[in-house]
Structure formats: C-alpha cells, structure tokens
C-alpha cells in the first residue's frame, strides 16, 4: 500500500482520539443508523443461536422419513428438509456453527495478520523479509486448493475447519497493515515517541495500532463473509462439517438442485437469507465502526 498524506492525517488524529474520549466515537457510531441496525441483527442472531433450545421446539437432527420436504405448516414453520427435519430448528442451530466459523476465523486471521503486519513494517530488515516471504508462500496457495489439502490431512471437525479457514486468511491483512505502518512509522508522533524513549511494543501498541484499525476493520468484516462462504464451499465439495450438524453453508448446499430451486423455496430461502443478512449486518457494523473511528468522517 502506498504511503499517502491521507494516512498521515488519520494517524495524527487517531493519536489524539483517546484524549477526546471514547464517548465521541460512540456518539458518531450511534448516528450511523445502518450500523445500529446491523448490530441489532447480529445481537438477535447470536442470541438465537446461543439460546437455540429455547427458541425452537424441534430437535434439529430429528428426522422424519414420512415427511420429507413438506411445505411450511403450523408445526414446522419453515417446512421440513430433505430428511424430514424441522427447517426452522436447523437454521437456528446452524447459526451457532456459521457465526462461530465467521467470527472466530476472521478473528484468527485478523489478529495474526495485524500483528505480523505491524511487526514486519516496524522491525524491517531480515524479520520483515522473512514475514513477507511467509506471506508470499501462503498467498501462492490457491485458497480452495489449500483448504482441501489441509482438511484431508487433519479431518473435518468444526474447530479444524475454523482453524484452517483462519490460518489461510492472514497474509492479505499483513500486507495491508504493513503498507499502512510503513508510512505511519515515519510520522512525527512515532519518531517523537521513540525519541522520548518509549519501548518498541508500546509504540506499536499505542501509537501505531490505532492508526491501522480502520483499515483492518473493513478487511475483517469482509473476512467474516469470506469465512462463512468458505465453509459453504467445503460443504459443496463434501468436505464440510460432519453429518448431521447443520451450517448455513451445508443447508444451502443441500438445496443445491434445480428442482428444489423451482419447487421448494423454503429449503434455500431461510439459510440464504440468514447468510446474507448476517454478512450485510456485519458489513454495516464495519462501516459504522470505520466512520466512527475515522476522525475525518463527515458525520460529526
């Protein structure tokens, strides 16, 4: 990422941000209506997933061979799926896995990516070189290719899949962060802090990290969507989370057939809407955070 005057502004102002107080950030965030809506949706979804047994009245894995693909009715509000399971219960329980995959995998990749990006740019020299080579190496592997190979090696449990998706996502963020930090570290306040004798970790954490947060957040929100969809792709290849656990991805995949598309919308609409809504909500949240954290935001 090229250095730019704009990034300097961000850093300079973000540096002052803590002094102005977090309240201001919150105030700006609150004004971002879509962000609030996104947050509300996420809270509701997470709540439903966490308390799934309380909000559903069927076991998600309870099959009924005499009621395959039945349309919505009073007892099955979203109908039943191809194994006669209650579609509503499955969507809710699937949220547990899918939200976890999205959030945890995004968190893993963002933390690794940000950390390595800052260290790489700040330290420079051989460490920078080494990290950049590592970035290149991981990025060379086509994602799906690497996913398949790794799943084949370590097996397809939920946590393995989260871990694999997370571990493959960091290089892009490392590059992004490194580009930002390269320009930040030449800024007056960083040089000043160093002159005052602040430790390296302190400079990285207090002076540099806040400067890259807006960029990282936007990237991270897109990663959440990417992670949920990666899990879906794995399901498509038959390498996803094990049977009979539901995820939004494998529910979409189970509906992947022309006849279902035409005749049984209750099989693909609920998981499809769940994925889209979650992704859109996460992105609104990301936008809101970015605008709130970005001191040049015009909303003020």
């Amino acid at each position: 990422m090229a250095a730019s005057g704009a990034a300097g502004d961000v850093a300079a102002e973000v540096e002052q941000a803590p002094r102005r107080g977090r309240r201001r950030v919150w105030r700006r965030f609150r004004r971002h209506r879509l962000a609030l809506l996104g947050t509300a949706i996420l809270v509701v979804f997470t709540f439903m997933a966490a308390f799934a047994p309380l909000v559903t009245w069927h076991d998600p894995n309870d099959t009924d061979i005499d009621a395959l693909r039945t349309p919505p009715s009073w007892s099955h509000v979203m109908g039943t799926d191809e194994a006669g399971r209650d579609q509503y219960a499955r969507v809710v329980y699937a949220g547990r896995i899918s939200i976890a995959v999205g959030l945890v995998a995004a968190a893993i990749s963002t933390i690794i990516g940000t950390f390595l990006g800052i260290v790489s740019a700040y330290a420079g020299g051989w460490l920078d070189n080494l990290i950049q080579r590592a970035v290149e190496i991981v990025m060379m592997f086509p994602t799906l290719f690497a996913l398949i190979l790794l799943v084949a090696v370590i097996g397809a449990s939920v946590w393995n899949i989260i871990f694999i998706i997370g571990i493959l996502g960091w290089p892009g963020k490392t590059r992004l962060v490194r580009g930002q930090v390269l320009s930040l570290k030449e800024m007056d306040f960083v040089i000043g802090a160093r002159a005052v004798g602040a430790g390296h970790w302190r400079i990285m954490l207090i002076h540099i990290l806040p400067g890259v947060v807006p960029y990282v957040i936007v990237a991270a929100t897109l990663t959440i969507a990417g992670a949920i969809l990666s899990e879906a792709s794995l399901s498509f290849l038959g390498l996803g989370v094990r049977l009979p656990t539901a995820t939004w991805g494998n529910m979409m995949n189970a509906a992947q057939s022309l006849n279902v598309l035409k005749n049984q919308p209750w099989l693909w609409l609920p998981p499809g809407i769940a994925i889209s809504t979650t992704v859109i909500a996460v992105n609104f949240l990301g936008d809101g955070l970015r605008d709130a954290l970005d001191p040049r935001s015009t909303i003020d």
Partner: protein
Amino acid sequence: MNTFWKAPRMVLVCIMAVVAAFLFLAACGTREVVKEVPVEVVVEKEVVKTVEVPGETVVVEKEVVKEVPVEVVVEKEVVRTVEVPGETVVVEKEVVKTVEVPGETVVVEKEVVKEVPVEVVVEKEVVKEVPVEVVVEKEVVKTVEVERPTEEKVLRVRMANMPPGFNPHTGGSGAVTITLGWTFSRLVQPGPATGTWAPDLAAGWEVNEDATEYTFYLQKHAKWHDGTPVTANDVAFTVRSLLNPQSAEWMVNTYASVKGAKAFQEGTATDVEGIQIVDDHTIKLIMERPNVTFLDELVVVAALSPAPILPEHALKDIPDDQLFEHDFWSQGLMGSGPFKFVSWVPQQAMVLEAFDDFYFGRPNIDRLILEIIPSADATQIALQRGEVDTTVRGGVSLAANKEFFQDPRFDVYGTQAGLISSYAWNQRIERLRDPRIREAFWIGVDWAKICDRFYGGLCNVKGSPLFQSFVYKPEWDTRFAYNPSRATSLMEAAGYSVSNPIDITMITRPITNPDYRAELAVQQDMLGDVGINFIVKEQDTAAGQSAWYDTYDAEIISWAAGQGSEPGVFLLSNLGLTGGENAFGIHHQYPDFYTAMEEGAAIVDRGERAKFFQDFTETWLWDILPWTSIREAARVKIQNNRFRMPILGDVPKPSRYGDMPIYPIHAGRDDNWIYHMEQWDIRQ
C-alpha cells in the same frame, strides 16, 4: 456539479454495455436445440421384371429406382464366391448402392441376389443376355416418404467424471472400461438379456469336459482400426501384457487362472505356459486347475467390464517398463471395437467415430461424443435441451428423475445395479466383534422405507450378497427386516443402550448428493434410537481404500462391488484371498470359512453350486456377517427417446415411477453400454 450527474450515467452505460454484450453473445451463438428434419418426398419406382425362359430357369429381376434429387449414386458390386463343402458352388452377388447426397450417406441399399446354378452357369452378363421370349413387365410405382437426415447420426453421452486415463493395466475406474469397451473388443461380451456370455471377438468358444481348456475361435474378419487383421497373437499378447509385472497391472487376477501365470508373474518363466496358439484365429487357454468360471474372471473385477484385447503390432515395440507412460493410452487408442478413437480432451470430451470394418457391421451411429459434465444440474438442463442424449455414469437427483419420467421425450428405465451396496465391517477391531452389534445395526434401520423414500421404490433389501438369480432365495429379503425392538434388545445384550451408545465410524467418499446426505442422516437418527452412535466420516477414495486395505484402521466402510455372475468368483475376489491380506479381519478367525468357499467355487455342476452357496449363506454368511445392510438399488437411466438401444426394445412407460421397467444385467453394471453397440441408432 455537472459531473455528478454524469457519474450515474456512466454506471448506466456500463451496465447497458455489459447487458448488450451478454445479449449479443446469447443471440449470436444460440444453438438450435430441436433439429428440424426436412421431409423430402422420394419417389420410388419399383420395376419388377419377370423373365420367363422356356425350360426351368426363371430369373426374377427386380429393379428399384429411386429418385432423389441432387445425388450421386455409387454402386459397388461385390461378387463373392463361397465354397461350401460338397460340390455346390454358390455365387453370391451383392450390389450395394450408396446414394450420396453431398455431405452424407443417405440411403444404403443392399441387394443380394443368390444364384444357385442348377444347369447353367450364371454370371451377371448372362442374365442380361438370356434371350427374352416373354417379358412380363410390371411396373409398380410406390411413393414413399423418406425423412432425409440433415446430418450425420451423432450420439452425445454425458459422464460425470473424467476417466483419469485409459490404460487397462491401471484403470480401475468403471468409466475407463466403458470407454474402452467402445473402442476395443473383448473376447466375450455380457449378454444382459440372456444372462450368459455372448460372442464378441470370439465368434465361438469351447470348453473341454473338465473345464481345463478354453478354446476361442476369433472372428475371421476382425480388423484393428488401422486395417491390420486381429489374430490369435494379439490375444496371447494381451494375456502376457496383463500378467507382466513390468507393465504393472493393478488387478493382476484377470488372467491369473491361466496355467503358468504365476511363474510368469514371478519371473521364473519367460512365457505363460497355458497359452496355445492353434492357428491365426484360434487360441487355446489352458487352466491351472479345473475352472468353470473363467469367462467371469475375464471381467476386470474392479471395473466390472470385460478386459479389452490389445493390439500387438502397435504395442510390442514399446518396452514393458515404458508401456505405462506411452501416449498410446492418451492420444493413440486403437482397438478393434465398433468405434474408432478420434480425439480425447481430458475434462471435456472424447470423440469416437464409427469403424467401417467392424466385424459385426458398421455401427449405425456415425459419431459418439462423450462429454464430461460434473454437475448434475447442468446435466439435467443439457438433457432437457437435447444437448446430450443420455448419461452413462452419474445420474441426476431423484426429483429430476421423476420429472424426466413424466416427460414423453425421454425413455426412463432402470437397470439392475449389478452392485451390492452394503457396509463392510472390520472385525479386527475388538469392539465390533460381537455379531449381535452387527445384526442390530442391520435391523435397526428401516431399509425398506429408505428404499421407498430415497430411491423412489427402486431398491431392494437383500439378505445375502449372492444376488445371482440361480442362487438367491426371495425369502432372504425379509431375513433382516426392520425390527427396532429386537435391535434394542440385541444391543442391550451386548452392553449398550441409548444412554450408553457405542460409537461406530463409517468411512465414505465425500458426499455431494444431498439425497444421500439426507439418507445418512435418517440412518444416524434411527441407529441413535437403538444405542448406536453412527459417525459418518467423509474421506476420498484413496484415503478410504488405504484405511480399509492398507492400514486396517477403518471400522466400517460404505462398500460396493459388482455381483458378477458367479457366487464363488464374487466371494473369493472380494473377501480378499487373491488380494493378499484380508481386510475384513475374518481370515484368521474362520479358516474353515475360506476352505468351504474354495470348495464351493470348484463345484462343476451349476445346480449343485447353487445349492452349496444357498447353504453357505444361511450358515456362514449369516453367522459371520462380513457385510450388513445389503441392498440393491436399480440404476435409473434417462435417454432421449431418439436414441435407440435395441436391447431395450420399446421402453414402456407405466403410470407410477416405481413401476418403471428394470432391465436385467449379466456381469456388471452398465452391461448394456458395452453390448452390440453397432446396433444402437438415432431416430432422425
């Protein structure tokens, strides 16, 4: 401000440009799906000339004149003199008229006049020079409407996965052998309708009294696609090549019963002792020991298709250890079968062309195109739009099958699977040794209902893997019927219950078919109710094979195999003695089981053999239960009904999906795909 309104317009322009490009492409390339067949009226004039000569000779001359506009009539006259033992000389005159309309061959008229000379030597000229005394000329003018085909007959066939290669030495995949069956010929072919082996490259064969000598009489007119005649040497070469460890056949049992095969494989003999070339077109294969099932062993077990005969003249100069990498197998396939290899682009298509000199006659279909379409949905659309005529490997969903069943443009029928679908148990694992667990597992699932719901009723639960019609007893079907209460009590006796379930892990290949995932979820749910925690682990074929056959750490696997036509061959080849180690882990536990099996396979009389294996099922197999949950699901085939496969006849269309006709097979699945392909046709 002025640019602000320009910007959205830019978007509009972009969108419009994309849409326009999209539509342009859609319009310019739109392919006609249903071909209009112009009907042309051909006036056919038949002139029957009856020439009556005083005395006894009556020459009847029939002349058919067809008036087809713009055509070139090529007349080929073949005068064949056949000498029949005894002194009669039959002169056969064959007039082949080929009417060529620019582009393609339209009407082939074949007129065979057999003239048996009684008093006069008849030659063609002579006929015309017979003094005409009374000529009765009758002129019949027939007006026949002939649909003139607008293009060559092309059959397009879909296959889901690309065959990884075409080398029969290593190709275990059935996809490979089907395609090989189209280009190569086999000694014998399965006769799906007759339930026996039918002549192929071997026009006939003889087995001696004690089943130690098999003599094959090869087709006299058989030719390789390059015109070289097929001889007994080619067959001998094939046997050696498949047995040669250097060329590394994967399944080394195809010709393993031939005398001296073992010594040759081990390198202690330079030739296979049991090969005897009698003459150019006769070869005798001598067995190591009496063997009534040799023809069945010619089927490549894994691929369920008879092993192809390879051309010696094309392959003999390739050193054995380079045979595998030779591009004969990828770009130079040459056999003696009905279709000539034209091109093969992996992941896309294989193009084959009718072979004019095929020994059963030139195929009706001019070109056979095999297209690789992995997605079932794309296939469904391609079938509906007539882009492909049928699908040979890999089907479409049950719902789609039912839709095609309603569609009058398609023939939908089932073929016997020829496959035993089951779960195979690794009895090395201590936990799984209790037979009560296996029985509870089997009867704890309502297979009949699963067959009904997930296979549209085209599936049967079987009580034994010995499906062969002369062995299988219908009453076995109910031996392991759904009985959850008995399953629960069996599990309790074995020490497990719903609250204290046993974990049983099954390995199956990655499942992309939602119906199958649903079926497994139902099984999991039902088994959970009897105290079995059924875990499904999806691993690809290589990993599954390795866990089952190499490391023996698979607990149960989803197991399928071809039934074959002989119970003994099936049991011996699948319970693993020929393959070396026994994957089921019952080899050492039940040595008597193995001796019994071998004895049974050697019984010469078919009736006695049947009786033996019936008892064997009820005693041994039901005690040991190497396989459970055995069922047979018919394979549903969808064919555009312009494609005619004579063996099917007119496919009836009953009102209920579950009543569709199920065609029998002989040796393995998709037998009808390699049976007399020259008779296939396309209705224009």
